[in-house]
Structures are given as structure tokens and as C-alpha cells.
């Protein structure tokens, strides 16, 4: 009998070490708050599917992360959100893309999994489905923050595709070109070995309308089976081609690697430095949170009392 474990992230990327307090503290506080929520839920016996969904909902509602409210903007200044969720024991999954008015995309992904014979719904069809199921919707303006308007402007000025995370100050983003924060996610395992993973995002700043990233692609941004649950973040195009989330499980399964080894290897092999990070838990209650970017907003806790909330590597 092993204990429960939970890990969550608010995106991996080029997070500058000199991130000002007013930008760092709210995020750290949010991570702590979400971790506490998740831990309470696990302690009260909630299934990891419920735990990961509720944690991701909380992250979606927080305007400082790139999911739900606070999502980065498309090239047309709009929001297109996507999410996916997966249950390790049954490998059932649900995913959505192109949501524009749904307050909590992760919950729609869950509904797709539980209420349709399909796995993945996108765009108008997904919005219609959400309405038919009475999920909370709002005006698109709800999701748009001044920070993200500024980011889009900046990205257009530099005329390149950018993952969310440059300080939208007049300073040039001297922190190397592509800062990549995208995505929030949560993975959890309970003491019965039930596993789940949930991931949600607004995608890339200045992305083409209709662009789909790794987040809703099962095996890329999200994966869970009987061995582990994984949620990835970073440059979507790399994560897709490297099937990062699936990779962790495949390495454990086919090469007998431990969670820590498999997770580290999957990140390393995903692409050049600066392209991704992930959080993962195993059926045995272990946690891994590797990344090859400057930092990753992350938090984790295990039943034996270990807790971590961090952004950069520990010294």
C-alpha cells in the first residue's frame, strides 16, 4: 500500500531569475493554494480524476497562468483554449480545442470523456456541446488580461511566435528569444493506485487562429496509464513529435526505468534545451518534475510529508 501524491505546474519556460516580486509572488501563492486544494481533496478520498480537474479549474481561473482566464491571445487578439484529461486505470480520455467562451475548458474535456462516445471535440462543435451541457460560459473578454494584450503587441512587434512568458515591460526581452510558458497541469495518484492527468492552456502568443498544440493531444501533453500520470508543458510542436507524456510511461514499461529516470530522459530527448518540462506521478506514489527550460512553475506533495513549491532549480 503506497501513499498518495500530487504534482502540478503553471508552465515551463524562460522565466527570468530576476522576475520581479509583483509577478513572482502571486504565482507562488497560487501554486501553494492549488496544492493545498489538491492535497485536501486527496486526503478526503477524492478520485484523482476529480482532484486533477479541480486543481486545473483553479489554475484556469487564476489570471496569471496561461489557461482559462489569462490565456494568451491568437494573432487576431482572441482566445482559443484547449485541454485534456486522462484516467490511468481505464485509459479513458477527453479533450477539447478552440474554446472561446467556456470558463473551465478542463471540465468540458471531462464531459467529452464521460458523456460522449468520442474523445475529442473542437471549435464550434465543442462550444455547442458545452452549451448543451449547461457549462458556465462568459463573454470572451472575460479571459483577456491587459498583460496578454501587451504580450501580443510585443510578439507582433518582434514578429515571431512566442510562448507566453516575457515580462511585458518596455525592456527588450533579452532573456533569450523564445520564452515558453504555456499550460497548466496536474497529475495525481491515490493510495489505491488510481492515476489521472489533466492539462489546460491558451496556447502560444500570436498563434495562428486554429492552431492546436500538444495540450489536447493524448500522448503528447497528457497521458496516464496503470504506471504513471504525466502532464507536459513547453513548446507544443516539440512535445507533439516526441509524444512526451506517453514517452515517460513507455520508458517505464519497455525499458524498466524508474519514474525519475523516465521523466528526465523524456524531457532530455524532447528537443533542444528550453523546449519542455513535465510533472509526473507513479502508481507507487513517487513524483518527478523535470524541465530543460530556465524554470517551471511547479508544486508537489506526497503522503509522507514531502512538499515543494518552486520556479527555478534548487541550488
Amino acid at each position: 500500500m503506497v501513499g498518495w501524491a500530487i504534482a502540478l505546474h503553471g508552465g515551463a519556460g524562460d522565466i527570468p531569475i530576476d522576475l520581479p516580486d509583483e509577478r513572482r509572488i502571486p504565482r507562488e501563492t497560487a501554486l501553494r493554494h492549488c496544492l493545498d486544494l489538491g492535497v485536501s481533496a486527496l486526503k478526503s478520498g477524492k478520485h484523482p480524476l476529480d482532484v486533477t480537474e479541480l486543481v486545473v479549474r483553479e489554475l484556469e481561473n487564476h489570471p496569471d497562468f496561461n489557461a482559462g482566464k489569462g490565456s494568451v491571445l491568437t494573432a487576431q487578439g482572441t482566445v482559443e483554449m484547449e485541454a485534456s484529461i486522462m484516467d490511468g486505470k481505464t485509459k479513458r480520455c477527453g479533450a477539447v480545442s478552440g474554446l472561446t467562451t467556456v470558463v473551465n475548458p478542463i471540465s468540458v474535456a471531462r464531459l467529452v470523456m464521460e458523456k460522449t462516445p468520442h474523445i475529442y471535440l473542437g471549435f464550434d462543435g465543442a462550444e455547442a456541446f458545452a452549451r448543451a451541457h449547461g457549462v458556465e460560459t462568459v463573454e470572451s473578454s472575460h479571459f483577456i488580461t491587459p498583460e496578454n494584450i501587451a504580450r501580443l503587441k510585443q510578439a507582433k512587434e518582434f514578429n515571431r511566435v512566442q510562448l507566453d512568458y516575457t515580462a511585458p515591460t518596455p525592456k527588450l526581452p533579452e532573456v533569450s528569444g523564445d520564452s515558453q510558458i504555456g499550460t497548466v497541469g496536474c497529475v495525481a495518484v491515490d493510495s489505491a493506485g488510481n492515476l489521472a492527468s489533466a492539462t489546460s492552456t491558451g496556447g502560444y502568443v500570436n498563434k495562428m487562429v486554429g492552431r492546436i498544440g500538444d495540450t489536447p493531444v493524448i500522448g503528447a501533453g497528457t497521458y496516464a496509464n496503470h504506471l504513471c500520470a504525466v502532464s507536459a508543458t513547453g513548446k507544443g510542436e516539440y512535445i507533439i513529435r516526441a509524444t512526451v507524456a506517453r514517452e515517460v510511461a513507455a520508458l517505464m514499461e519497455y525499458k524498466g526505468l524508474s519514474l525519475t529516470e523516465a521523466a528526465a530522459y523524456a524531457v532530455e530527448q524532447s528537443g533542444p534545451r528550453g523546449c519542455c518540462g513535465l510533472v509526473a506521478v507513479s502508481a507507487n506514489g513517487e513524483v518527478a518534475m523535470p524541465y530543460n527550460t530556465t524554470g517551471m512553475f511547479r508544486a508537489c506533495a506526497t503522503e509522507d510529508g514531502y512538499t515543494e513549491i518552486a520556479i527555478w532549480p534548487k541550488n
Partner: protein
Amino acid sequence: MGRWAIAVHGGAGIDPNLPVERQEQAKQLLTRCLNLGIAALRSNVSAIDVVELVIRELETDPLFNSGRGSALTEQGTVEMEASIMDGTKRRCGAVSGITTVKNPISLARLVMDKSPHSYLAFSGAEEFARKQGVEIVDNDYFVTDDNVGMLKLAKEANSILFDYRIPLGCAGAAVTDSPIVMNGLPISIYAPETVGCVVVDREGRCAAGTSTGGLMNKMMGRIGDSPLIGAGTYASELCGVSCTGEGEAIIRSTLARDVSAVMEYKGVGLQEAVDYVIKHRLDEGFAGLIAVSNKGEVVCGFNCNGMFRGCATEDGFMEVAMWE
């Protein structure tokens, strides 16, 4: 210099009572597409180009469920999706929700080659298509009378139809004669007929592609396994894979990716990898796949009743088949 190999498929899961003339039509189409691919390979066209041109042929022909002849959504329209992957650098491109682009596989290729992204969908993909100047047609172009009839049938049965053209009269007989079931439906009203192609060229480069109209009577916006890299399509330095069958089973088992993963991490050959994933990865699901290796091998595997397929290798082997 390696040897080339190619395989094509037109869907896994076939009713044993499929009318003979339809079997013949399918075989002829598969043969024609194989020959197209073979001719190209003999003139040293690269694997990725061969995959694209063969799938274009399959999309253009109304027989299978892709491009023209695609299954219809619940609203009687067509929404197509496709993905393509180049094993050499694992570059990939995918599209979903395509309604006016004549050849979705080519649009997927353009996403891979000409956009900063890997996957575009719905209106964004359509806009990209127009900017790229690809051939655009009305949605009607893709709709065939056959499929209008099938949609009616599916709605009457109030079930999701995976694309099947058994004439109405036979359906009843088929149900009692063939108790085979896929996705909870009798095989007579289930057969995906997604198309795909995998190729390894003389340089040992592998590529794969898959294209489909999806499920008959599907919800608007429904995305299946075909455009999902790792599920319906995958290619690496070692192999190229294209899958077809029950989308859910293919997605949750990341079927295409697993063939390569098993080769990479267990160090086994293509046949063993394909056998392994078909046997152990699908749980209760039904699916099939075609695969080539960088060594010039070609393998087909499926755990359901039949798969429309054809394969050929440089040393002269050629086979078009439907059953075991």
C-alpha cells in the same frame, strides 16, 4: 543503399458478407494506389512525397472514407482530417475540421512545411489553405449519394456508423449471419475505411500519413485518431506507421507511436513490434495498422475481421488483401 517498401490501407474491420463487387472495387483501388507509389519509388521520389501522392489518390477516389466519399457528420456535411509525418526529423503536420480543401493530406503537409505549427483546425486551417493557394471546392463535392443513404441508415439506427456501404437489404441478414461486433455495433454497420500509407525509400527514410472523414453521423467538431500524431500516424528513423479502426482504442493506446517505441526500447524488429502492440495494446479495442521499417520491411497487423490493404517491396513482393 536500402530497399524501398510501401503499404496502403483502406480501413480495418470488414463485414464477411461484403458484396463481391465492392471487394473488387476496393482491391482495384488499392492496386492502383500501390502501383502509383511503386512507380514513384522507382524514380527515387522521397518517402514523404510518395506518402502524400498516394493518399491524394485515395482521397480523390470516392470509394473509401476520405476526401471525396467521406463519412457525413450528423448535419450531413463533411469534416475531414489528416496527418503526415516525416520520420527523418520527426517533423509532422496535421489538420482537422476541413470542409473545402480538396486534399486534406496536402494541407497537412503544408502545415508541416510552411507554418510555424504542427496542427491547424477548422476555420484557421481553411484560412491557411486559402493563403497557400490549395485547391478549394464546395463541401458538396465530398458528399456522395452512397453516404447520404448511409447517414439516413445510421440515424434510423440511432447509432454512430463507422462507414459502411452494405445495401439496406443485406444489413439485416448480415446482422444475424455475422455476430462480429466492433464498437458495440454489428460489423455490418461498422467499418472505418480511413485511408493511410507508409513508405520507406531507398535512403531508408520512413514516412507515414493518414486521412479520413471520420465517423458517420459524428457530432460536429468531433476529432478522431487520424490527425493525432502518435495515435493514427507516426514515423521515426526506424519506422512509419498508419492506423485505422476504433478511434478511441487507437488514441488511448497511442498505437502508432508504440510500434516505434517498442522497436526503440525493446530493440525488436518491425514484425515483432507490430505483433506486440496489436496483441497487448488494444485491450478490448479493435484496430489495424500498416508499418514499414528503415530496413525495407513491411508489416500489416490487425485484431479485427479483415483490413483493406496492399503492400509491396523492392524485391518484387506485392500483395493486395482484405482478410487474414
